[in-house]
């Protein structure tokens, strides 16, 4: 028998149903794994062991009632499954820091809808995972509480900003984790850690209880070891929420991966995504995966997304502009610590100046500039117009193809400190993931091989808005005939 933490989410769910293992056993196994590996990886900002064990016991009672035939309906697949949550989503009873000192000690008085839906279905919440401060970053190096280490090579970053979630899934500390994706923050760490990550369409998953970064771009997603494990999670968290007026009203039809077949599926490969400076083995890995998809019946053709190279400057004006507004609320009055000053203004200046980290201050400054009198039209206004062109690129492409395939990032996981104090070179890590956020389309990242350093290579698929089921089916079809997603790091 394999160890409990090595089971996939679906296998663990079967163990629970058949009584081969209890939720308490799965939870203790996960907590044991966390205790053993945290000193090496630092994937978590808070471990909610007491809460988790309480939830596990409740899940075991529900499972035993069902096994005794006292409950007719089959239990939700996540009942009793230990799951981690990125620390930008609120969970009542645990601190939420967003990786920032400005929220140190903050205990949210409410739970995010995405997390609440997991809890309602009986999932066991293990804790809050590390993130770049306010989800601004591609490596977790911007967390005020220290970097997370990549389980495949601890000298390297796990990607970001959902790096704690990706590392925790890769290291088998949990069966799945929630993440968020504003410019690639689910997909890029999924690729760097060799796990599968889904960024839903904009508006598909409620953002109530997600601490806002870039409101026209933010999405809540999930990471797990395979598309098959992600499907029940997505099914659960997607759908309208009266508490989030930007959540889409469309119902979420049941997702079936059974007999996932790619026959006749048209896949477009944008020529603009194979750029100079890209790691050769990443390109090779993606090209080989495309061959597998072709063997499964898909047709692959080259397409063009002509405004791709403008996505980076557009994103780095729009997201900071929105961030500068969203982060205005951190003023040391209602929550978080305060650095006193001689009057109210001095107190604001001190609190924000001292408790925000370098990248957050940089983006607030950039956004404030882009929105300031005299520069608004040239920067923010122009970025919004070019965003229209980027969105139309996708609309036009999806008239010809069903899916778009491309790399997740130009390289595999880089070394901690590699980008030093050069923000622009770090931003370039996001070049292949930003366009989906600007266009609002969903994306999935999954492993398609390893480079010479033994680091996972990720491929991304994008679909038209609300096309998550198609993404999951395509990734599942690939994972049924390949084994990259089953590789695990030696720890």
């Amino acid at each position: 028998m394999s160890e409990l933490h090595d089971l996939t989410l679906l296998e663990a769910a079967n163990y629970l149903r058949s009584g081969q293992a209890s939720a308490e056993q799965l939870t203790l196994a996960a907590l044991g794994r966390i205790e053993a590996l945290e000193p090496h990886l630092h994937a978590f900002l808070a471990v909610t062991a007491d809460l988790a064990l309480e939830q596990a016991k409740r899940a075991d009672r529900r499972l035993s009632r069902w096994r005794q035939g006292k409950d007719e309906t089959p239990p939700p697949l996540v009942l009793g499954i230990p799951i981690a949550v990125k620390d930008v989503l609120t969970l009542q009873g645990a601190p939420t820091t967003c990786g920032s000192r400005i929220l140190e000690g903050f205990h949210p008085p409410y739970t995010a809808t995405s997390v609440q839906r997991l809890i309602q279905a009986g999932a066991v919440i293990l804790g809050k995972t590390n993130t770049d401060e306010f989800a601004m970053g591609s490596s977790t190096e911007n967390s005020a509480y220290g970097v997370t280490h990549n389980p495949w090579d601890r000298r390297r970053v796990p990607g970001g900003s959902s790096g704690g979630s990706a590392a925790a899934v890769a290291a088998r500390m949990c069966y799945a984790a929630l993440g968020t994706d504003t410019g690639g923050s689910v997909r890029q760490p999924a690729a760097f850690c060799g796990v599968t990550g889904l960024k839903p369409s904009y508006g598909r998953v409620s953002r109530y209880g997600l601490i806002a970064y870039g409101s026209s771009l933010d999405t809540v997603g999930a990471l797990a070891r395979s598309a098959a494990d992600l499907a029940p999670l997505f099914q659960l968290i997607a759908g309208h929420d009266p508490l989030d007026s930007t959540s889409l009203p469309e119902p979420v039809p049941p997702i079936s991966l059974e007999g996932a077949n790619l026959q006749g599926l048209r896949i477009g490969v944008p020529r603009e995504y194979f750029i100079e400076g890209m790691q050769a083995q990443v390109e090779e890995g993606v090209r080989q995966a495309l061959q597998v998809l072709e063997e499964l019946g898909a047709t692959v053709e080259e397409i063009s997304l002509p405004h791709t190279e403008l996505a980076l400057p557009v994103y780095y004006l729009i997201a900071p502009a929105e961030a500068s507004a969203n982060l205005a609320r951190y003023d040391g009055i209602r929550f978080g610590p305060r650095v006193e000053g001689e009057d109210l203004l001095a107190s604001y200046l001190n609190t924000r100046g001292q408790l925000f980290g370098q990248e957050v201050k940089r983006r607030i400054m950039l956004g404030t500039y882009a929105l300031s009198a005299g520069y608004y039209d040239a920067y923010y206004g122009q970025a919004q117009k070019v965003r229209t062109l980027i969105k139309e690129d996708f609309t036009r492409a999806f008239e010809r193809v069903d899916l778009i395939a491309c790399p997740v990032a130009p390289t595999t996981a880089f070394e901690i400190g590699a980008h030093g104090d050069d923000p622009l070179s770090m931003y370039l890590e996001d070049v292949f993931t930003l366009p989906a956020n600007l266009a609002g389309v969903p994306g999935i990242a999954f492993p398609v091989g390893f480079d010479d350093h033994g680091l996972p290579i990720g491929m991304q698929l994008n679909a038209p808005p609300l096309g998550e089921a198609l993404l999951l089916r395509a990734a599942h079809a690939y994972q049924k005939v390949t084994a990259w997603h089953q590789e695990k790091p030696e720890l």
Partner: protein
Amino acid sequence: MALTREEVRHIARLARLRLTAEEEARYAQQLSAILDYARRLQQVDTSHIPPTATVLPLRAPLREDQPRPSPPREQILANAPATEAGMFRVPPVLDQQP
């Protein structure tokens, strides 16, 4: 186009951030580099392109105006750095001269 230290100080003031002299110098350089990079957007002809503020169809959803319970006051105040008599305590806003 390089941002001057003066401009950086002005933006920081608008953003309510007290920066150290070292931060002012670093941000002047880094923000200039990022804005230089962003200037390639200005070469795009967008004279007939509408801006995208959100990818969602614009709508203003309405709900019933029904009272709902709010979290207890103590729970909200528990997160504040300073409270007094069930309220947030803040530094002086106005000059304290009579």
